[in-house]
């Protein structure tokens, strides 16, 4: 009887979610309230957590509360520590939530808020959270092994190396695209540039304080650091209005690119306690704080969504990025729905802290639902600003022109009425000289966050303050990611090259370290540079490549899960991972093939290269290139990007080949063949 009542309550919640989703999806012609989206997502996530994740935990994986986890077995108080599940949830969430779930939905908003919201909800419930959860489970049962190790162990040495190579490629692209977002946000913005530069001395002060003055006092120094950061935002405002100092801190995109490349190299070889660790503390606390503030703001204000539910750009002609709804929406949203990168965190770090394997459901599945909720909020933030402003900020000058009048005319022409005065007004409100050509998602999101927080705490000039607060908060964790990613990439590169030249694997060798760091910085620096000088905006090319690579990694992780399920002889449940894996493979393969072979030069890399090569032979200069050298650049970049697409395809199809081979062999065997560590009961239980 009691059970029935509980199920009825859950049914009511499910109905509430369905109703809210119905309102979001079906109401046309009038603005809907952001709260409908939040309610729909929350209700569906709760129901999915209660039923689907429980099904996976009990039926598919048969999680056993009596089985000892690596944290219990290897408890050393340091790496392996059984941790309270709520504390671990925070740790896991802080590790998986980054810029991806914030930027992807903002870019996807060019098709309207509806397609993106639907994919966020469906994708996370059926694919993203399943991947995080299952990878966490199988890693926990393999002594917290990393994804690459598990692929090697379960599928063989060759696919293991290929997967490692794939991870490295993805790392390089992520670093390039994240750095590009920073460049786009800081170019010609003395206020933003000053606050971001100010984080370096602040972080160094914190680092020295924690090392020598009062060692290990994370709490107090983080508070001091945050106060200093807020002061630097205030000071940045003063600098942006000063004629001399604003000039000093105004840099072009190319200048900032070189600074970032130099910074990336230097920061990756400095001791970690000096900049990396303290800034990571700042960025983590700010990130959590901002996400909470945004959630409270949306709930208090429940703003109306101004973006249409669906725009005309679902046909693939959008200005922010090119490509039709299928497959490019699923590529663009990336992290908020499903993110392959999480597989690297769910294997390795988190399983070493899991106190009981049944908690993997809450940490893995629940953590990813939370991340998706952040993406939903980013979508709301992008949809509450005027669509005219959204498109003016995100369209490249090559399409809409470079001054307020022509941009306003072009955007109004698409049906998103906006005046040049309104565009200049927004720029003034946020304390910038212009908001045009600020693609990349971060500035748009910052405007959305600033609008929401400004309305919660209204005061003169607070719009500009919150805008730069949001920019700083994004730049902060992107810089941390660049710094940390370069280090991680260096180890991956050393590991990879070490397979051929063993001397390079020695991480204690100064020469090998320098070589690998320089190699890693050069790779992402090159992609970043070409993205910055790309007259079509760079985000256009790099974000789809990032999306494809990230979703492909998720595909690899899910294929591993399929193979493991078959080997465990749980094969009648293999559809749980097989369906999302198949969907991701279809999306990413179709997207890569379109990016390679589409005859439209705005979409296909080869067509673009061909068009410019033909013109170059005829001695013509095609806009937006300005001379023959730039023509060469465009051709070279198109071939590089085409090469990357081919590499991704090769990586994913070789893993698919091995997955099919190993999976088939395991399917016909009677007994289990997986490499799970043998059952050990929790001591004393």
């Amino acid at each position, binding site marked *: 009887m009691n059970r029935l009542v509980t199920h009825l309550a859950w049914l009511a919640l499910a109905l509430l979610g369905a109703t809210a989703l119905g309102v979001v999806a079906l109401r046309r012609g009038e603005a809907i309230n952001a709260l409908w989206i939040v309610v729909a997502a929350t209700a569906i996530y709760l129901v999915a957590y209660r039923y689907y994740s429980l099904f996976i935990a009990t039926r598919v994986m048969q999680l056993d509360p009596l089985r000892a986890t690596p944290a219990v077995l290897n408890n050393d*108080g340091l790496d392996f520590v059984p941790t309270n599940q709520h504390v671990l949830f*925070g740790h896991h969430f802080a590790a998986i939530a980054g810029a991806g779930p914030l930027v992807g939905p903002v870019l996807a908003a060019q098709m309207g808020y509806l397609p993106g919201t639907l994919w966020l909800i469906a994708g996370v419930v059926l694919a993203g959270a399943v991947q995080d959860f299952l990878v966490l489970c199988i890693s926990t049962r393999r002594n917290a092994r990393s994804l690459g190790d598990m692929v090697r162990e379960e599928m063989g040495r060759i696919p293991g190396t290929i997967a490692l190579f794939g991870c490295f490629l993805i790392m390089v692209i992520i670093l390039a695209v994240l750095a590009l977002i920073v460049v786009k946000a800081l170019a010609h913005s003395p206020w933003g540039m000053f606050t971001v530069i100010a984080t370096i001395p602040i972080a160094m002060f914190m680092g020295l304080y924690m090392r020598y003055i009062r060692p290990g006092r994370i709490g107090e120094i983080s508070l001091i650091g945050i106060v200093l950061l807020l002061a630097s935002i205030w000071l940045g405002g003063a600098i942006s209005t000063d004629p001399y100092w604003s000039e000093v801190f105004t840099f072009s995109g190319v200048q900032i690119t070189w600074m970032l490349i130099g910074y990336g190299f230097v920061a990756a070889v400095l001791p970690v306690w000096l900049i990396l*660790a303290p800034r990571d503390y700042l960025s983590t606390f700010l990130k959590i704080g901002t996400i909470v503030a945004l959630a409270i703001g949306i709930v208090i204000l429940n703003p109306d969504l101004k973006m249409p539910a669906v725009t005309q750009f679902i046909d693939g002609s959008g200005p922010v990025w090119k490509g039709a709804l299928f497959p490019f929406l699923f590529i663009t949203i990336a992290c908020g729905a499903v993110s392959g990168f999480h597989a690297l*965190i769910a294997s390795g770090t988190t399983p070493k802290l899991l106190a009981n394997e049944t908690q993997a459901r809450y940490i893995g599945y629940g953590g990813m639902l939370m991340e998706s909720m952040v993406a939903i909020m980013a979508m709301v933030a992008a949809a509450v600003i005027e669509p005219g402003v959204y498109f003016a900020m995100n369209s490249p000058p090559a399409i809409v022109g470079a001054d307020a009048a022509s941009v306003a005319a072009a955007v109004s022409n698409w049906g998103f009425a906006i005046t040049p005065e309104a565009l200049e007004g927004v720029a003034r409100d946020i304390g910038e000289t212009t908001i045009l050509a600020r693609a990349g998602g971060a500035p748009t999101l910052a405007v959305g966050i600033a609008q929401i927080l400004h309305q919660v705490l209204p005061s003169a000039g607070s719009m500009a303050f919150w805008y730069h607060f949001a920019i700083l908060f994004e730049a902060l964790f992107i810089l941390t990611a660049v710094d940390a990613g370069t*280090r991680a990439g260096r180890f991956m590169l050393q590991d990879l090259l070490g397979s051929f030249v063993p001397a390079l694997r020695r991480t204690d060798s100064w020469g090998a370290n320098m070589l690998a760091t320089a190699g890693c910085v050069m790779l992402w620096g090159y992609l970043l540079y070409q993205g910055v000088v790309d007259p079509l905006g760079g985000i256009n090319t790099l974000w789809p490549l990032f999306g494809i690579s990230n979703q492909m990694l998720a595909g690899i992780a899910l294929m591993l899960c399929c193979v493991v399920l078959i080997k465990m002889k749980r094969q009648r449940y293999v559809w749980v991972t097989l369906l999302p894996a198949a969907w991701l493979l279809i999306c990413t393969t179709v997207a890569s093939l379109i990016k390679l072979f589409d005859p439209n030069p705005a979409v296909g890399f080869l067509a673009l290269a061909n068009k410019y090569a033909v013109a170059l032979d005829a001695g013509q200069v095609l806009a937006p290139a300005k001379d023959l050298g730039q023509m060469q650049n465009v051709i070279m970049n198109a071939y590089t990007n085409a090469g990357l697409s081919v590499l991704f395809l090769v990586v994913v199809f070789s893993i698919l080949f091995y997955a099919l081979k190993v999976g088939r062999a395991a399917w016909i065997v009677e007994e289990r063949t997986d490499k799970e560590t043998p059952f050990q009961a929790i001591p004393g239980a």
Partner: protein
Amino acid sequence: MFNDLSRMGKYLGQAARMLVGMPDYDTYVEHMQSKHPDQPVMSYEDFFRERQDARYGGGKGRPVRCC
């Protein structure tokens, strides 16, 4: 009530430190005393440095974070 509050504060502090990958020092000391009474226990300062280096200082797959 003050007991509850102080427990709550300790718990929140632990959660905040874990956000940045710093495990609980008391847990470590307790573990060392009960399981390895013969081995030296690091001071909080040494423990902090050791953990910071372990989190960021490299080794395979470290530091890991998402996009």
